[in-house]
């Protein structure tokens, strides 16, 4: 390969890298710089690793991290729901196109709108509990958003409901792109729906499932702010039961006048996200290699 041939790919991506550097470059450099300073107003003295030490020594930070990690439990549920529904839709049952559209609606709606509506529904005296009491299921009428023991699970249920829609569409798109001859052969061989799904379809969806899992991990670690902000009363409540890392950063920056602390946590979250993106690309490369 000649030198110009080796350089050519980089020349293609250079404008995009330049654009990214222009938009995010200064912010990222400032963020890293702030994380080593005690910032008041717009600047402050250099304090080395003190911000990192303070954050890593604070129970509230670790509690926030713990909540993000707990939210990862939603991912297997999301994958299972998305798989089952997409496989059912793939069977092209009557009205499947309408069902597909209805299922995707939650994902189109803005998170704050969905969260505000569900927050009203899940109040202690709200419609959900009223129905449960009407059905004489009082023991199930929990304080969904007012109890520290339940609130994070309620948020998780909302996330599962909304984010599964993306999985369904991704999986269905992959299914519709498959060669149906294999499925037909399996059907002719007498394989039932479950066997066709398990042995024929799902193995061919491996790449898209891995992609969805990694995207969902990144979501759970760094993109649940809107859910938690609305459902947790804007403060990760009740108490600190729905506090997550993003809200911790927001509070440090906006509410407690600690931009240096916010920057330190942002740097750590950024590093974790980069690591996950690297994992994603490694998986993609492995899948591609296996395919070729």
């Amino acid at each position, binding site marked *: 390969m000649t030198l110009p041939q080796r350089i050519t790919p980089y020349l293609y991506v250079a404008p995009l890298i330049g654009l990214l550097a222009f938009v995010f470059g200064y912010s990222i450099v400032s963020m890293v710089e702030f994380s080593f300073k005690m910032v008041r*107003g*717009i600047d402050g003295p250099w304090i080395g690793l003190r911000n990192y030490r303070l954050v890593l020594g604070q129970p509230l930070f670790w509690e926030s991290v713990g909540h993000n990690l707990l939210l990862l439990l939603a991912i297997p549920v999301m994958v299972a729901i998305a798989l089952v529904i997409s496989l059912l839709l793939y069977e092209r049952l009557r009205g499947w196109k309408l069902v597909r559209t209805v299922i995707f609606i939650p994902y189109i709606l803005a998170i704050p709108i969905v969260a505000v509506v569900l927050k009203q529904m899940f109040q202690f*005296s*709200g419609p959900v509990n009223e129905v449960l009491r009407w059905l004489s299921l009082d023991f199930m009428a929990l*304080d969904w958003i007012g109890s520290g023991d339940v609130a994070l699970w309620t948020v998780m249920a909302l996330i599962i409901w909304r984010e599964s829609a993306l999985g369904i569409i991704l999986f269905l798109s992959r299914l519709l792109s498959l060669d149906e001859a294999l499925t037909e052969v399996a059907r002719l061989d007498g394989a039932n729906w479950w066997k066709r799904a398990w042995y024929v379809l799902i193995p061919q969806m491996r790449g898209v499932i891995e992609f969805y899992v990694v995207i969902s991990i990144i979501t759970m670690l760094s993109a649940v702010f809107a859910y938690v902000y609305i459902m947790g*009363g804007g403060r990760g409540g*009740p*108490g600190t039961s729905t506090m997550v890392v993003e809200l911790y950063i927001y509070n440090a920056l*906006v509410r407690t006048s*600690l931009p240096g602390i916010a920057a330190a946590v942002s740097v750590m979250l950024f590093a974790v996200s980069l690591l996950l993106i690297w994992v994603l690309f490694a998986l993609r490369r492995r899948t591609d290699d296996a395919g070729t």
Partner: protein
Amino acid sequence: MTKNMITAPGFGRRGFLQGTAATLGGLGMGSLLGPLRANAQSPELTMWWWGEQELPGLQAFVDESVAAYTDAKVATMLQDTAVVISQFQTAAAAGTPPDIQYLWNGIYHMESAWLGYLKPLNGLVSEDTLRASNPTILSNFGGNTYRLGWYPLPMVWYYNKDLFEKAWLDPEAPPATWADLLAACEKLKTAGFEPVGGGVQDGYWSEWYMSHGFVQTLDTVGEAVELFIGDKDFREPRYHEHWVRLEELRTLGFLNKDMPSLELYPGIDLIVAGKLAMGPSAGSRLPADSTATNGRIGCMVMPVFGKGKLAGKPIVDMQGIGIAEGAKDPAAAAAFLEFLNTPDRLNAFHRITGWIPSSSRFSSDQIENDSVRSMWKTWGESPNITNVTNLMPGQFYEQAAIPTGQQVISGDLTGEQAGELAAQVAQEWREFNPDLVEKYQQWVVDLSK
């Protein structure tokens, strides 16, 4: 002059046209130059303000006042709630602050003063105007005052007179002591009503409860600061007694059941709707709530349990306004603030907003609503205290004041555990903010007077 022109020899059509043109031209130029001259002479001020969000009509008052003011041209900007402080601080740091800035009370503006972004008003605004506006003790630092009071926020406890009557309680004699409160709650509960509470889901109820309860244990507002800087300790029973009392209300079943899942204002709405008997509220809601209930909402001071010197006193928070250190013309800015405090403008404030301006120059006789006038006699015209939660560092507010109240109400914390958490968060705040601790230590001197 006109007569001379008309009788002058040789005055023809050309002369008439020239004269007319000159006259009209002169008139036209005069009318153009007038404003230009005025603009050239009068300073231009910028004013960033907030408050329409909580006091509808304030925008109309600001617009009318700006239009009526002739000594300067004032450009105003209504700020978004989320950026009132950060927008000002960023502009001040960049050297382009507004001349006049809206300022919340206590630490919410004092941090800007410590950063050198605010100008002391003493010497700039007359002492008489400054004192009459009641900016509260929380606006003082190092012997200087950094805000002018603009409009008050009396912090009251609402009670529903109809529910009191139905529970055989005197609607004109609300409970004054903690024992009275417990007895009243028992009667209300027996009569089938939820006695006390509101909504704590968004956290503000926790703050308001501290405003009313925590202050009862203090002798001075400076004592609160001593708790934050570590000279005193929240683990002492006296300083977390308010959370123990809240726990008592919960364990006795006196708090409304949906309190943890309701937000602040829907919780207050329960009292207005006759579904809850008592709870903290804001006095600024009273004109509307009193009208809606035909005067059946009463205001009371939180029943007293504490033995501090501040216990049992009406609480009045104060919104304010100040001048930036980087103001282009501080004297002109001060003159505009003086203008807003003239009797004409104070009356206009009440006429347009329906609320009370913060000035002893305003006569409460102008308040037509009986409930509001009665409330203001107690909260505004009797000895009152400021809202001590405005002293809380942001970190303490977010990580202790708000969550402790929620957790005590939901039964996840006892009052004593709330005190331990508060002590831990105060310690963390000191470690995170050693520079602010020094400022707070100096502030105690002003606050303990």
